[in-house]
């Protein structure tokens, strides 16, 4: 029995469908970075602790270093590159920038993807909810204070945008 027989996968990434023959052992993070060239998703600890590799898989934050590409077959992935729309940064990206939610920036893509999942579930989270929601993402620079502030600011902005859109006043 051959151990290197490749498997065909079809994965929608940031809206575009990709099809490749991959080795079964290929991790989703390697698929994104090495096959698709989407290097915004980082490899940190590579042991499912640090969360730098977090992406959304079918709308849920997962650690892409601990998912095989073949497990994501047929699925939909969103990476940090998929957040900006029409040349405008996502409110979370803007808020991390404005509130200094990053220093070295290594954890930031994963932190933002986790925060996005959190805000999808809790549009108006208190500080405790944010801190618990980001437990799977480690930052060794900021001490988390400004990350929490950035997520709070983004939440307020996203709620306002939603309210404006509901009132028919959306500007996009």
């Amino acid at each position: 029995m051959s151990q290197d027989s490749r498997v065909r996968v079809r994965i929608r990434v940031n809206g575009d469908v990709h099809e490749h023959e991959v080795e079964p052992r290929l991790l989703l993070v390697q698929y994104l970075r090495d096959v698709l060239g989407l290097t915004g998703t980082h490899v940190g600890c590579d042991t499912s602790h640090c969360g730098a590799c977090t992406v959304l898989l079918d709308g849920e934050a997962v650690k892409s270093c601990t998912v095989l590409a073949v497990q994501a077959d047929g699925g939909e992935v969103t990476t940090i590159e998929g957040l900006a729309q029409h040349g405008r940064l996502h409110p979370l990206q803007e808020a991390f920038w404005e509130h200094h939610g990053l220093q070295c920036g290594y954890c930031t893509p994963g932190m933002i993807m986790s925060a996005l999942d959190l805000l999808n579930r809790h549009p108006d989270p208190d500080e405790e909810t944010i801190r618990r929601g980001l437990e799977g993402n480690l930052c060794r620079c900021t001490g988390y204070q400004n990350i929490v502030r950035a997520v709070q600011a983004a939440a307020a902005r996203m709620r306002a945008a939603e309210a404006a859109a509901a009132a028919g006043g959306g500007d996009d």
Partner: protein
Amino acid sequence: MIPAAFAYHRASSVDEAVRLLQELGDDARVLAGGHSLLPAMKLRLARPGAVVDIGRIEGLRGIRRQVDHVEVGALTRHADLAAARLPAGLEALAECADRIADPQVRRRGTIGGSLCHADPSADWPAAVLALEGQLVLVGPGGERVVPAAEWFVAPFMTALQPGEILTAIRFPVPQARSGSAYLKLARKASDFAIVGAAARVTVDGSGRCTGAAVGVTGVGDVPYRATAVEDLLVGRVLDDQVIAEAAARAVEGVDPVSDVHAGAEYRAQVAQVYVRRAVQEALGRALSQPA
């Protein structure tokens, strides 16, 4: 870190998975959510020649209320259980699920995968022992059921036989006026349990304890039922002194392990404290139920 090469097989039914395991033999491992197996494969602690992915089998994920028990499909994610509405007395299931690792891991990791991996510091064993889970296995010879108390054989070793797959865990719905709780000591966010204690307590109309079960993880080389504690609880009206006296026997007959996180003496001490608190919490929940 990259796993060693393996052949990938995706099973679309339990029967197909069992057949594949028979064909592939000892060299095959079952992949559910992948949050125990893949880290082990990346570290090359596990090097299976073949992986049977059961992650897409219909009907293995979800929580079903039956007449006298709750059936949890083996592929049910920790996050599903953390958010589940469960009958009174099974609170420890959701509480345990919510304390496992971190949000991302809880969305991928499955209760069945964790129980089959059988890490002696995993959270699930304590809750599954205290809630007297019944593990449903399907193999070449059909179905059999193993009580949680007989499941954990040695570190990372269970009663699962070659060719078998865990398909569900059945939890008896506790009698009226039952409560349960899970408490865990971990050094930091995302960690395994240094000590994890789950308790289920049932009381009668007069407040007397008519049933108790305590599961402990992280302390011995395998998770265990603290039967010495249970024996001192059943038949008595539980006040703080009775509970403390019972909890003092949390490590009776067990050799607590020592490692970089905690020495044996510390584990023994914390086990007693956490068992006491878990019993108190479970009792409070039982007493809050209508008589």
